[in-house]
């Protein structure tokens, strides 16, 4: 169905080809997963299928790409629109019309299908994707998961034989991701649709893949094979694979179910382990590390300090917040103490970002009080507030204004009244090999996050908030982020992460706060809360239940 024949793509002005030696075939009715670290050209390979590379992006494509027998060299993307449906990384950039129903019909209108056919397919797709209740809703009012489903629906209605999806579940909460994947699996199984998909969150998708194409490094020749073959050698892999490699399971299990079947001996070994955890983990001791004292002395000079015996860094008391007509937060009570790492979880639109924005004073509470370091965030002048609390927003680009990394760092030092070079030192710590004159927009997703984190940390806020930090990060970047955040927590920073990534939360957090419809529905130690939840439990927990293990690292430690 899709055939790549020795394809290489070189963009204009690039030193070498972005991808080279791509040569594989996707047979009809298969779901093929494209994996690899970020920046290896996954999006380029996907774009070549729909013809957007090189017709739209420019650059030179050598070799040949054929889709359903049509050569992309002689067919413009619009002439492939009836066989290929493409959904990019950002569904919002994909929408042409205002309402859900019109959006589903748009592609068919362009292809000139008969009105009766369009009507029937729109109704079918609304049912298939569970969008019937949203049919006349303006797209601007939908949540992230709903938008992703509308975007997929909008390319399904013309009945393409090939679907190309770039990170379809990265922005979704676990339950919404499972829904989208269930729909994709149905398309493959029942309708014989061919799907080529790139995704960083392998733990979500690998069980659905028939085959995998692995791009190991930029410009390197891709490997193809069955998921278990590829996973045995892949530099990127989900926790279930890591556990399988650790325990030497053969064949390597890809799903929780396969892994559980082989896990009995491992469970038995772990049962005798001294660090076995059947009881909830105590929240780590919030004693400030020595380095913390240095920051404290800095605050005394420059900013009002919270009372020294103040037990909590931030307190939220019966906070409610209305936005337009929706009640975004209801009666939230929350305290954040020094050295704590809290994972804020819940489905898309549950109020996680709203709560974080309230803590930095971007939003004003309707009722209730918020205090951070003894200050009321929305009434505190920004230069004072950034010494108490820092937020890395969902899109780190919002924080970056300058045109080089060096200028960005200089500006950050000035904003925070820190010694010149403070920010640059932090950047070098987080991103060892980054040059001064690179434009922040040219950085990869993970590098940009690190730069934004450095900018926020320049003011040394004791409370650090991160909104959805792992979106678009590969496992390596995520591992670096985890180690950075761990050392910050050890220094005494309190960290609050709003995230859908249960594996990240399991690695980092001591405490979980679950939000639903603007209310706190659970607040307690990580191990206690996630173990009981089918969608928020990490893979290792599911495999080793009823024992309570959260991460591969813990298991490795216990086996030593």
């Amino acid at each position, binding site marked *: 169905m899709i055939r790549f024949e020795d394809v290489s793509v070189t963009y204009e002005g690039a030193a070498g080809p972005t991808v080279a030696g791509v040569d594989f075939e996707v047979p009809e009715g298969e779901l093929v997963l494209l994996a690899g670290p970020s920046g290896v050209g996954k999006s380029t390979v996907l774009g070549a299928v729909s013809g957007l590379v090189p017709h739209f992006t420019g650059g030179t494509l050598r070799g040949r790409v054929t889709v359903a027998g049509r050569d992309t060299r002689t067919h413009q993307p*619009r002439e492939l629109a009836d066989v290929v449906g493409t959904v990019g990384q950002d569904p919002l950039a994909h929408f042409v019309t205002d309402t859900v129903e019109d959006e589903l019909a748009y*592609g068919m209108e362009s292809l000139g299908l008969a009105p009766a056919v*369009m009507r029937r397919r729109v109704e079918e797709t609304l049912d298939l994707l569970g969008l019937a*209740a949203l049919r006349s809703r303006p797209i601007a009012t939908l949540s992230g998961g709903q938008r992703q489903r509308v975007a997929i629906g909008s390319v399904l209605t013309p009945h393409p034989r090939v679907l190309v999806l770039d990170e379809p579940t990265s922005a979704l909460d676990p339950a919404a991701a499972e829904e989208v994947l269930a729909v994709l699996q149905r398309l493959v199984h029942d309708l014989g649709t061919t799907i080529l998909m790139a995704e960083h969150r392998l733990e979500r998708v690998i069980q659905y893949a028939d085959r995998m194409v692995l791009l190991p490094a930029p410009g390197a020749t891709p490997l193809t094979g069955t998921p278990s073959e590829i996973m045995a050698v892949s530099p990127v892999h989900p926790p279930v694979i890591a556990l399988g490699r650790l325990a030497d399971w053969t064949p390597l299990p890809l799903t929780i179910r396969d892994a559980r079947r082989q896990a009995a001996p491992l469970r038995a070994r772990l049962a005798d382990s001294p660090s076995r955890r059947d009881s909830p983990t105590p929240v780590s001791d919030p004693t400030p590390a020595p380095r913390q004292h240095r920051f404290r002395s800095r605050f005394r000079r420059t900013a009002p300090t919270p009372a020294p015996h103040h037990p909590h860094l931030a307190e939220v008391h019966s906070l409610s917040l209305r936005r337009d007509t929706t009640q975004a937060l209801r009666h939230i009570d929350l305290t954040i103490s020094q050295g704590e790492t809290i994972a804020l979880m819940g489905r898309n639109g549950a109020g996680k970002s709203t709560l974080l924005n309230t803590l930095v004073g971007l939003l004003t509470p309707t009722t209730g009080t918020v205090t951070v370091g003894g200050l009321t965030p929305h009434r505190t002048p*920004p230069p004072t*507030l950034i010494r108490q609390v820092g937020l890395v927003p969902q899109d780190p*680009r919002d924080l970056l204004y300058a045109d080089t990394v060096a200028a960005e760092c200089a500006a950050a030092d000035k904003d925070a009244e820190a010694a010149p070079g403070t920010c640059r030192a932090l950047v070098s710590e987080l991103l060892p090999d980054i040059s001064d004159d690179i434009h922040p927009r040219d950085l990869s997703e993970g590098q940009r996050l690190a730069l934004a984190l450095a900018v926020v940390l320049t003011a040394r806020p004791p409370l650090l908030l991160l909104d959805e930090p792992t979106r678009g990060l590969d496992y390596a970047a995520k591992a670096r982020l985890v180690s950075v955040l761990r050392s910050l927590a050890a220094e005494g920073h309190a960290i609050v992460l709003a995230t859908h990534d249960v594996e990240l939360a399991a690695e980092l957090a001591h405490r979980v706060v679950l939000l639903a419809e603007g209310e706190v*529905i659970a607040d307690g130690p990580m191990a206690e809360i996630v173990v009981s939840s089918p969608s928020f439990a990490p893979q290792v927990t599911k495999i080793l239940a009823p024992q309570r293990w959260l991460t591969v690292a813990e298991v490795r430690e216990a086996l030593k």
Partner: protein
Amino acid sequence: MRPGDPGPSRDRGNSVAARAVPRTPGESQPRAPETTPTRFRPTLHPGAWWLWAISLGVAATRTTNPLLLALLLAASGYVVATHRSPAPWARSYTAFVRLALAVLLIRVLFAVALGSPIPGTHTLLTLPEVPLPHWAQGIRLGGRVTAEAVLFAAYDGLKLATLLVCVGAANALASPTRLLKSLPGALYETGVAVVVALTFAPHLIADVRRLRAARRLRGRPDRGLRGLLQVGLPVLEGALERSVALAAAMEARGYGRTAEVPARVRRTTAALTLGGLLGVCAGTYGLLTAEGGTYGLPVLLAGVLAALAGLRLGGRRSPRTRYRPDRWGVHAWLVTGSGAAVAALLTLASVRDPGALHPGVVPLVAPTLPLWPAAAVLLALLPAFAVPREPS
């Protein structure tokens, strides 16, 4: 999804739909009933709302009577309040109302500052007059401000403001994008480009707001002009990136596909369109000049017909079809009719009884409400009662 496969799509659809309904995790409701009532598509043709609003605008230009204008504003506002769509773009009504207020204020301020040709005897206050050089004769800065001049400016400004509010009402009742669906096929692609360009501005404003807020996170004040300038470049970059992404998505979804048409049809299309436009130009010229009174109208009509035929033929090049096109039904006639009646009756009244529709300012008199024109304006309320509401 494909025809002949309705079975599985139904049961999956149900369980997925259950998620779209708000529910708390923990309580498992695999088959939650759809609590949202079935939504009907807005049944009224968007063109009807636009014609209604434009007719009200025309009616507003026929009078300066503040009582009649206020009645028009109230009537259109009431219809908007009952029938506007719940969509975000319907909020533009408030923006239009603010703009109208600004226009009214500016008109009055100009009359105060620059004086007015209206002779008046009731001096309200005297501003210091700025002496101007002789080449600026006829322009006055400051000086006597009379009640008559201010009142005249206020009447005039109110007329303009009413016109603006009527346009705002059209926007709130039917988005321009919906109107686009009724455009002839040959013009559709240009129309999409225009609409995308129009939505560029609101997106840009949203970006500016978001980035200015993010300045707080850097410890910089989020207000003030400097803040605006500093986010300027990132905002433009972001908007450009989004436009390119949208263009790519539209291209990949078949925007701009053309159908093969015989060369003969293509040539006929070009000839008809060009000839038609020339005819329109010549006809208009004829109508406007004194000696062309005889041939002006027929040439204009022929030109319009030829251009329309060209457009229709040109539509063949585009293979587009329309999904659920809006139908022009009884309600559309009612809405358009009520608007047209208001415009016609007020035009008639302005001819028959100009005094009542243009209350004098010299000498100063209190405006009175002329009875039957006021009753005519109330006809504009008909859609509020006759047209079924969109469920919200």
